[in-house]
């Protein structure tokens, strides 16, 4: 804590560190606040407390080994990261993924989006004092994690997508589990709405707080619900469709108010849109068909083939010992993660390991809007504003 006297007005300002061990900073974010009484004059975000070196580590792994690292970036939406990285490498290789795998990817990433939004809603609400919403959200998220565990084997660090398709055939009965969730969830969204949307405390804490107009939002480069809450309807799924998103029907919810409440409404509407996409995907996924593309030397052959055919076995050995070498070149691939535009830039020098992997993390960019949100407002609003950006520090400090 430090105090400085303003020589002109004679008032004192105080510098206060919020975080990095503050429960409402959602990880280890430190915000340096200059305060006049309870009013925030200046806010500066200090990041780097969770630096993992994931981007650098990718350079020491083969292309497919690096998938496991991407899980750990945005750990609330591991499948979105897996998807984006795989799409980037597939672009580099010019690889086409079978439709069945594409639909399954869409379904699972939308489930991840719901799961991630539930964590956001729960933690945002508990930051502002609504305990029960938190518990209800995590209860529903548990159902999603169970589906992910059923399909991939892990609740969070899924590593389920592979370059060229999926790791495993989804187990029998998984669609029934998704169906159960999809049937149950709409009434649960209604419950969250009943608890919060008209709640007077919620309105007082979020309406008019953390204002960001469209111009500033675009200038700062924010994306995702943070941008759409300011009235800009940009969604990568609509503008640069990937993984067959152009075959799905869904709306991009936007609000024009640009405050925390608007972003809350946008995300709740997104939950419903994701459900819509999941329903369409369930109808689209063919019961049978390949889950990986045919690309000898790049995509591991089927296990059955590997055990019976000599050629397949040789490819299997080659892929797991050396990996594969894409042609030299660089690609950028963006997807709409729950937090906004997630991008992977992958550069290859023709060796089996990426020469450079750069992540355009939506949390990192969206965090730049925090000073805009809080300057001139009360300290209590800082908590609401950090919550509304929905940052994941694993992605900010990669």
């Amino acid at each position, binding site marked *: 804590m430090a105090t400085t006297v303003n020589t002109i007005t004679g008032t004192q300002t105080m510098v206060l560190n919020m975080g990095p061990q503050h429960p409402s900073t959602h990880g280890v974010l430190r915000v340096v606040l200059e305060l006049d009484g309870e009013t925030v004059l200046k806010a500066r975000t200090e990041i780097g407390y969770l630096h993992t070196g994931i981007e650098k580590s990718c350079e020491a*792994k083969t292309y*497919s*080994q*690096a998938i*496991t*690292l991407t899980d750990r970036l945005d750990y609330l939406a591991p499948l979105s990261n897996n998807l984006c990285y795989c799409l980037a490498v597939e672009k580099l290789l010019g690889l086409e993924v079978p439709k069945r795998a594409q639909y399954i990817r869409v379904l699972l990433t939308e489930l991840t989006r719901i799961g991630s939004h539930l964590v956001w809603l729960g933690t945002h609400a508990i930051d502002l004092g609504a305990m*029960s919403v938190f518990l*209800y959200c995590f*209860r529903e998220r*548990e159902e999603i994690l*169970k589906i992910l*565990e*059923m*399909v*991939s*084997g*892990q609740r969070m*660090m899924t*590593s389920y997508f592979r370059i060229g398709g999926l*790791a*495993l055939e989804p*187990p029998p009965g998984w669609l029934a589990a998704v169906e159960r969730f999809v049937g149950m969830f709409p009434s649960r969204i209604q*419950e969250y709405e*009943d*608890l919060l949307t*008209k*709640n*007077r405390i919620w309105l007082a804490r979020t309406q008019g707080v953390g204002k960001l107009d469209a111009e500033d939002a675009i200038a700062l480069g924010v994306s995702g619900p943070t941008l759409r809450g300011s009235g800009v309807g940009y969604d990568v799924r609509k503008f640069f469709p990937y993984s067959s998103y152009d075959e799905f029907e869904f709306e991009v919810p936007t609000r024009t108010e640009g405050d925390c409440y608007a972003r809350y409404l946008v995300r709740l509407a997104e939950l419903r849109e994701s459900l819509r996409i999941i329903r369409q995907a369930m109808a689209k996924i063919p019961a049978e068909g390949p889950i990986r593309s045919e690309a000898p030397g790049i995509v*591991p052959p089927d296990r059955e083939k*590997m*055990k019976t055919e000599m050629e397949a*076995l040789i490819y*299997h*050995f080659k892929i*797991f*010992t050396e990996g594969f070498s894409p042609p030299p070149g660089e690609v950028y691939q963006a997807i709409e993660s729950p937090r906004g535009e997630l991008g992977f830039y992958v550069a290859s020098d023709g060796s089996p390991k990426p020469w450079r992997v750069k992540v355009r993390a939506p949390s990192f960019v969206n965090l730049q809007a925090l000073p805009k949100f809080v300057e001139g407002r009360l300290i209590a609003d800082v908590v609401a504003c950090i919550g509304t950006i929905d940052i994941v520090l694993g992605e900010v400090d990669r």
Partner: protein
Amino acid sequence: MAFILKEVGETFITLAKGFGVTFRNMLRKPVTENYPDEPVHFQARYRGIHVLHRDEQGLEKCVGCFLCAAACPANCIYIEAAENTDAKRISAGERYAKVYNIDYSRCIFCGYCVEACPTDAITHGHGFELATYDINALIYRKEQLLEPWPPPKRAPLNS
């Protein structure tokens, strides 16, 4: 006046709605897992502590090919292979793994080793209770990972 009445009315409606949700949830079944008093419920595919398998004759399936070690992103599998002899046959193949260690202080349970193994020798079990006070105890040796032989008698699965 009318404004105040409207506001009071709305407040009461939202309060009633909110408490309605709370009340409904009080009547629902709890979803908490009572670990450790009750076992944890895993899905069949759960990736837990590895198991090294044997074939029907009780020979080890692992042929010491090093594929799992090469595929492992965390570099946590250590293998020393040795030749089988007719007098001492450990696996059906030419070689077997004399030493097979997995360092669980590094393993990330990604399943790449299972995917890589050409003989289905290694799979994930459902074990997960790894916590220990001694980090060296996290290096699991072949004896700890290997399926017991002869297999213990199990009650038939009734699912």
